């Protein structure tokens, strides 16, 4: 379903190509049909008439065939020309067109007529009347070969008539009666059609291939290179939005971007960056929702959760600047973090709920909603709504009569507010949005600065960007770091830490579910650490696929981060007046050591 929708979502440009292709083919056919009528049909439509002494014979290659050929001692060759037997001289006269319109026979008009055949040194009848009396065609056949051998001649050149007879027979067998050779015009028309259609076909095919490649490249740029969830065979590449910012005065801003990105690494909140079939489906719902009334998505939590069925499904996109919605696997991940579903829950599962579990799920418990949770990645979100399809119902669960289950094969939608933690910039740099308390409850675990996107900076909708504060110059102002969190030097952020972080996030018990060999009931996935195929349970596969993607993203971002830091350090080593002119500000930049120290704080 998701894949189909994914394809449909790309359908506009493909339809354009298709229509273009069909128009080319149809246009070509019309042109060729028109050329057929203009070039070929007039010739065919003519009813050729031959001059006196000649008759129209479609079987012949010449069209107008001499009528009295045998009477004058000749015979018909392979093209029905009237010629003399071997050894005889042909006596011909020009055809008299004085009383005949040559337009009536056109290209078939004969120019000479055979009057007699004479044996050299005899002369033509017009001069000397010595013509061997050949009475009929049958006699001619016997005279010129048939009588001697009784068989077909061994060489066509030796004797004419038997060869002619054979070719005619073959022609009739193969071509059928009344077949004509193609006229040059018709042959060219056919050839033009063939090459035209063949060329069009190849051209369209080639263009389609090119457009496919171009589209893939374009999509790569648009989607941030994100590939579909199940497509693990092809390593994922991340689109790098910061690559086109080589200017030195933007390096600091890039550094902030990267640092913020690093804080997002492995975050489950980056649902916007994940392109999965389910995600695309969710996007479609979100699009539909955006066209409708917002009130449709506000079910009452005082009543049973199946109310959600009546509401328009939502998910996947920011419904307002401070809110985002998770569904599918992402929602399950959050539910897992909320402790509502066990590890390994997949979208095909149904989770039974007792009364307590149900109350917890639908927010009827004392905690209710909004409920704030901190994910293992350190992110804080405030869950405001959980919607799903409940089998049974709240009353049944309370009464203990029917099993009450959450059906994860149906949309499970979680609406949560994002509490984005943004590290402080280095000296001389401050975010545009300062630590403004959100109108919604925002938890501050430390004294980190929070950015309230609801106030002035809407969350970016692009899928390949990360949420970053705007950076502006603030000369003379220094922001000190007052975070008492554990500080990890940059060079210690190695792969092992990342792996551990991800494993913590996903809580995958590697020892129990991973096998290096195929086993019944296990499915293959790729271990991002080793890039080798391992085998896990079907339920755990989504987690592994998500793990794979996040791991690749994280490693990529980590490399970019190190690159930016290196660039920053290089800038810091420059003479002071250069640094002052940069976006880092001037007043607080005293020396490279201090700056390096500030960088290390990140």
């Amino acid at each position: 379903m998701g894949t189909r929708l994914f394809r449909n979502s790309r359908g506009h440009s493909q339809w354009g190509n298709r229509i273009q292709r069909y128009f080319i083919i149809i246009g070509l056919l019309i042109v060729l049909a028109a050329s057929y009528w203009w070039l070929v049909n007039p010739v065919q439509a003519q009813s050729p008439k031959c001059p006196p002494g000649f008759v129209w014979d479609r079987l012949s290659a010449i069209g107008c065939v001499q009528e009295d050929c045998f009477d004058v001692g000749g015979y018909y060759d392979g093209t029905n020309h009237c010629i003399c037997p071997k050894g005889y001289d042909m006596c011909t006269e020009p055809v008299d067109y004085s009383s005949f319109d040559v337009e009536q026979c056109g290209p078939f008009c004969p120019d000479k007529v055979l009057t007699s055949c004479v044996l050299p040194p005899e002369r033509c009848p017009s001069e000397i009347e010595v013509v061997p009396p050949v009475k009929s065609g049958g006699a001619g056949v016997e005279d010129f070969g048939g009588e001697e051998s009784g068989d077909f001649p061994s060489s066509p050149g030796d004797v004419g008539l038997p060869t002619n007879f054979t070719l005619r027979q073959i022609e009739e067998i193969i071509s059928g009666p009344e077949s004509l050779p193609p006229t040059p015009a018709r042959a060219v028309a056919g050839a033009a059609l063939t090459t035209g259609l063949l060329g069009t076909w190849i051209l369209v095919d080639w263009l389609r291939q090119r457009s496919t490649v171009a589209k893939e490249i374009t999509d790569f740029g648009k989607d941030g290179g994100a590939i579909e969830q199940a497509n693990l065979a092809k390593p994922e590449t991340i689109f790098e939005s910061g690559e086109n910012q080589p200017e030195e005065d933007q390096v600091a801003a890039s550094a902030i971007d990267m640092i913020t990105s690093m804080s997002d690494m492995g975050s489950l909140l980056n649902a916007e960056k994940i392109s999965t079939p389910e995600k695309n489906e969710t996007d479609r719902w979100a699009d539909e929702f955006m066209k409708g009334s917002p009130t449709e998505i506000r079910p009452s939590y005082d009543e049973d959760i199946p109310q959600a069925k009546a509401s328009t499904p939502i998910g996947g996109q920011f419904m307002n600047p401070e809110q985002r919605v998770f569904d599918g696997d992402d929602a399950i991940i959050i539910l897992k973090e909320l402790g509502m579903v066990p590890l390994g829950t997949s979208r095909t599962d149904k989770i039974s709920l007792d009364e307590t579990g149900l109350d917890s799920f639908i927010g009827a418990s004392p905690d209710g909603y909004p409920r704030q949770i901190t994910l293992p990645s350190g992110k804080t979100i405030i869950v405001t709504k959980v919607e799903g399809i409940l089998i049974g119902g709240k009353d049944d669960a309370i009464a203990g009569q029917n099993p009450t289950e959450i059906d994860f094969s149906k949309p499970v939608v979680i609406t949560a507010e994002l509490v984005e933690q943004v590290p402080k910039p280095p000296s001389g740099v401050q975010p545009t949005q300062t630590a403004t308390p959100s109108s919604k409850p925002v938890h501050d675990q430390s004294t980190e600065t929070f950015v309230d996107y609801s106030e002035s900076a809407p969350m970016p909708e692009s899928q390949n960007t990360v949420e970053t504060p705007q950076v502006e110059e603030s000369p003379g102002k220094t922001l000190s770091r007052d975070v008492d969190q554990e500080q990890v030097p940059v060079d210690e952020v190695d792969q092992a830490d990342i792996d551990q972080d991800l494993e913590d996030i996903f809580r995958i018990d590697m020892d129990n579910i991973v096998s290096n060999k195929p086993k019944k009931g296990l499915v293959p996935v790729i271990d991002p650490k080793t890039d080798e195929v391992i085998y896990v349970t079907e339920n755990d596969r989504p987690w592994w696929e998500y793990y794979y993607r996040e791991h690749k993203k994280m490693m990529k971002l980590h490399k970019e981060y190190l690159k930016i830091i290196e660039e920053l350090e290089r800038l810091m080593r420059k003479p002071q007046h250069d640094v002052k002119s940069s976006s880092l500000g001037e007043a607080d930049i005293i020396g490279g050591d201090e700056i390096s120290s500030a960088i290390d704080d990140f």
Partner: protein
Amino acid sequence: MDIILRILNVVFSGVTIALTVLMLLLYFKERRIQPRSLLLSAGLSLIMLFFFILLTGARLNIMIATALFIFGAAFGVLRAFFVKLYYRDKQVLGKYSLLSLLGWGCSYALAILLNSFDSALLASLGLAPLLLATGTQIALNGTLFLRRIMMQAPTSQAV
């Protein structure tokens, strides 16, 4: 004028050969097998044959033509079963039969060439391989189309 047209015919024959080579280069690598493309190929082969016969006026005994077409179609069906179709990256890939493509293109070039000799017999003889090759193409693409739409997606697409 006739000579010019005949020369033009020979040129078209050469162009057809060149296009065939180009087509072979395009189809040399494995490519995505789409049902729509297969149907289009088969349909275009049929349309080209129809218009070619209609325009040139070349005729072939209907019995011989039918026999050749059926024989070519049988070969095409057989050949189609040896074309390997497989899933990769959520797409069905396969490699077209280059031999049948080559034969098809060459048969067109030959038919065009023989049409320029002003002989009904030669024109008919040119149609013979064309019918054979077109039958092969249509049956090949048709069978591949059936195979393609009956293909089941792999249960696991993780790797």
